[in-house]
């Protein structure tokens, strides 16, 4: 492939007076693991949130798989995409939040199957089988029917990873992945 999976060009984001991102540009290539390291408050989370459009950017552009995110260019001007189009673009990225944000009213298994069944319209039994396989890969097959409140922080994070992977994204975004670190997670989670 000759183009990067993610291309970020001159992205800026302000929260009121505070400038979180100042003309950030970078490339991420398929298969690459890129770590953003910096002091707290330096904009790492903001950049991740911009990539999956939970935060809108003020200027610049992000291309994912060659597609400009959030806006479309027409007649020399940018037009905001509809919510439905943004939701479709978001499917290409998986996000593991710093606080995991598992759905507390659903079991580990239901957390993982929710997206594939509700959003991608996959069959319940297929999604369940795949979710069980993912839970096995993160070492939590025995916790399929546990609610998030019954899991430790590290276990919750692994369910969150499985939930993101179940959508088969092209890009995984991890916010503070070491906050509940799992030894050797990459060996277990990356497609073999």
């Amino acid at each position: 492939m000759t183009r990067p999976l993610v291309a970020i060009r001159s992205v800026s984001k302000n929260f009121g007076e505070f400038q979180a991102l100042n003309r950030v540009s970078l490339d991420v290539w398929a298969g690459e693991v890129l770590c953003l390291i910096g002091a707290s408050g330096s904009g790492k989370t903001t950049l991740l949130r911009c990539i999956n459009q939970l935060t809108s950017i003020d200027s610049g552009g992000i291309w994912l798989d060659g597609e400009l995110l959030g806006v479309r260019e027409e007649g020399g001007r940018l037009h905001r995409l509809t919510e439905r189009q943004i939701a479709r673009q978001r499917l290409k990225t998986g996000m593991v939040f710093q606080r995991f944000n598992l759905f507390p009213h659903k079991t580990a298994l239901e957390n993982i199957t929710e997206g594939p069944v509700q959003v991608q319209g996959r069959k319940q039994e297929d999604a369940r089988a795949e979710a069980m396989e993912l839970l096995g890969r993160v070492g939590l097959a025995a916790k399929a029917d546990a609610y998030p409140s019954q899991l430790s922080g590290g276990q919750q994070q692994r369910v969150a990873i499985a939930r993101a992977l179940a959508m088969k994204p092209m890009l995984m975004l991890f916010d503070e992945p070491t906050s509940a670190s799992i030894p050797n997670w990459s060996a277990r989670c990356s497609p073999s």
Partner: protein
Amino acid sequence: MRAAPTLAEGFPDISGMTVARQAHWRRWLAAAAILVVLAAIGRAFVNGQIEWTYVSRFLTAKVILEGITNTMVMAVLAMALGIVLGVVVAIMRLSSNPVLASVAAGYTWLFRGTPLILQLLLWFNLALVFPTIGIPGLWSARAVDVMTPFLSALLGLGINQGAYTSEVMRAGMLSVDVGQYEAAQAIGMGRLRALRRIILPQAMRVVIPPLGNEFIGMVKATSLASVIQYPEVLHNAENIYYANSRVIELLIVAGSWYLLVVSILTPLQMLLERRFARGAL
């Protein structure tokens, strides 16, 4: 390795002893005083001018049973209307669309700001404002025929309840962490699906106790529909005492039914709470 340390002297072994029961004489005294007061009140009612035979005779009279049935039908339907309106209005209120948010705020302001009995009278007398109502060219009818006591009571109680329920629902939705909405978005959900699948089920947990309150209030508020001739239990009890002048006896009959219904509702609320507490510690 060190030898096991010897324990200090002067701390006897009390592990075999039991804790003595306290006397609680003040509790006994208070209970006795309350029993005396209750007995005095009970005696007053027994000796007062109440014909208890009338109470027991009318408690299960056909008209009274029809009345309490109508009360419950109205309470359930009006509450259902109130919850539907409440959810819709709460979502509108939290929407980023300023038109929807203002309409929702205006609705709550109007229907919370005027007395319920006045709203019921307005719905019932709608024919004075609009003699005929309908959709031009498609359907029309005389307002007097449409605004029956039943429909007036349903609209009056339900729309009023919607204004209160919307605030309860809004509180419930605000209580759900914003990260839940973001996680739903991150797996590709749109706004409405995230609300239905992720936000509302979690809001329900918070919302059931106040909604239980509202429903109990609704059961009793249906009695206001007696002023627009809806045949609920108080209206029917009144009709009986207009004929036989046993005012207090029939008010006790109606009151007993309200108490019974409310007593049944409380354990039902517990069951609902347990249903929506899934995953909570």
